[in-house]
């Protein structure tokens, strides 16, 4: 009788542990805090996304994918253009040194 009761208790305990584990594994995003559901920038989303074992690798954003399709020569030209614009900005700072001018926003599309 005692053996039977012990077996039943252990079985119940096992079922309870299994239920808890199952619940934790299948908890959906609805349970997550509201703030987490707010739309985030692409980068932050990628960084905070939980890794799923069987999920396929994340697809790069269209902007990143487009940038990786740009031929290397075109990319070098973009960098060249960026250097020219930044040099012009630095030279205008040298003509009239001023913190606002030093940190003026770049016109370069390479970083915008």
């Amino acid at each position, binding site marked *: 009788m005692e053996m039977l009761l012990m077996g039943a208790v252990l079985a119940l305990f096992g079922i309870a542990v299994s239920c808890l584990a199952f619940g934790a594994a299948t908890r959906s995003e609805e349970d997550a805090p509201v703030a987490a559901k707010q739309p985030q920038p692409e980068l932050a989303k990628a960084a905070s996304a939980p890794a799923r074992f069987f999920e396929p690798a994340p697809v790069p954003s269209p902007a990143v994918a487009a940038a990786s399709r740009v031929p290397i020569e075109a990319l*070098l030209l973009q*960098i*060249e253009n960026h250097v020219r614009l930044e040099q012009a900005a*630095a030279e205008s700072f040298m003509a009239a040194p001023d913190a606002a001018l030093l940190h003026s926003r770049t016109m370069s599309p390479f970083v915008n």
Partner: protein
Amino acid sequence: MLNARPDLLHGLAEADAARVLALGKKLVLGNGAELFHMGQNAESLYMILRGHIKLTLPMQVRGQEGNVLVEERTAGQTVGWSALIPPCRFTLTATATVDSEVLALSREGLRALFAAAPEIGCAVSLNLATVVGGRLQVFQAMWVREMQRLVELRCA
């Protein structure tokens, strides 16, 4: 050919400027020709007489090495000042982007002239310091701008 006094010869009397120019050897470069390569011994500095010279550094872009523009120089300006500054090795690669002509001034020739005529040496050295200092100031400003962008990205 040059219309104004080259940056290296500012403040020199005509006769003294002529003595410096007499040391030079003209080099003609076709579009795309390399004047000097990063890492080479810098035996001469170059005064650009005509055309356009691009100074580049290698950069890895998507696993491939590309030469990225650092600076551009045109007629009247000087490139290759590493020839007078130890360890006398070029730290950039210089390439003509159009048909160009430069005057190569050898380190040995310039040193001999500076020893014989210290007033020329003083004026040319000051002009060289202006060229080097100008580049340093531009790059300081460019570096701070890049750092500012990096800080903004980090703190975003």
